């Protein structure tokens, strides 16, 4: 995964953080999902201003995990998000989604 990329919510995604939990609706199926605390924190950072390396660094610091662990967790999370078309990856930083 190219850590210079900037993840942003997919234009077809509906989401909201409710009382510290991200609630996300998958675009195609209308399926509703909730993210755990780490997933919610990553979701907060997915607004086009932080690239993947920056997000991994933030997770490493805030959750006191190794850089390797932070990257692995982030990649696993993003793979799932990309597969379900919840996010897209951009080459440059954009405005807040």
């Amino acid at each position, binding site marked *: 995964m190219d850590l210079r990329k900037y993840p942003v919510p997919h*234009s*077809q*995604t*509906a*989401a*909201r*953080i*409710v*009382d*510290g*939990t*991200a*609630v996300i*609706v998958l*675009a*195609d*199926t*209308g*399926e*509703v*999902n*909730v993210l755990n605390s780490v997933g919610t924190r990553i979701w907060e950072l997915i607004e086009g201003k932080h690239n993947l390396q920056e997000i991994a660094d933030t997770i490493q610091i805030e959750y006191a995990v190794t850089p390797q662990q932070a990257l692995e967790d982030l990649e696993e999370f993003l793979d799932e998000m990309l597969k379900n078309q919840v996010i897209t990856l951009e080459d440059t930083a954009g405005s807040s989604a």
Partner: protein
Amino acid sequence: MDMIIQIADIPVSLSFADCDPAIHARIIEHYQAFLTQPQDGTLSIQIRCESGAPFIPPDISTTWQIRTSAHHGRIEFESYYERGWVDRLENRGGLLLRPQGDPENFLRVVYAWLCLEQSALLIHAAGVIQNERGFVFFGHSGSGKTTLSRLSLNHTVLSDDLVIIKKQNKTFRLYGVPFRGDFPEAPRTNAAAELVGLFALSKSDRHYLAPLAQGDAVARLAACVPFVMTQPLAAQRVIEICSDLARHMPMQTLHFARDNGFWKVLDGFEKIPSAA
């Protein structure tokens, strides 16, 4: 000949063309409790009956198919024996019925969208009024909505399948609908009450309430909103309305056994004073 139904204070006019009088009479009887008088601004839908091939080939191996979409104010609907549309800009629509057809599923879809326009929600849930207090019990298919409804016949059962929740003057009201699920013999009650609580259902061997985190409550409730969730803007609106509900309305999990003892748990239930 026209008839006007009104569900959750939302009127829809239905006119019939080329329909067997027996079909017309059946539909009038079905919606009898929800008929109202003509009023301005009512969405007008013409129902036409016509023989022909099914719009979707029937397939008993799958769940009941309803294809619907909404773009730029136009709602499209198609099922086996019904094909319809509504243009919200022109405030009119049409429904073509095959002889086996029934307007109910079309009306469910139309009302799901009309509700959302008014920041209301049509929800897959059982609704019961007890002592003028509205209770909503939601959950996936098989969670116990029909069972709970059958166990609540000493109160006013609004539906075992669909109800409408609508915010009015900083309070939420629960409305009955003429739509039924697996409990068709239940009366079609046109009633409403102030909503005092929403409960995610869980079958158990005893009756008790358990906390439900706000995020989980919003997700589980939104997952019970039919027809509109595949449209991103609509889904966003649904989540916002559910969040508003979760902030102002107690949402818990009701674990219940197969007897009406759960009402003893709910008898002492008090709504949290609204902060709105």
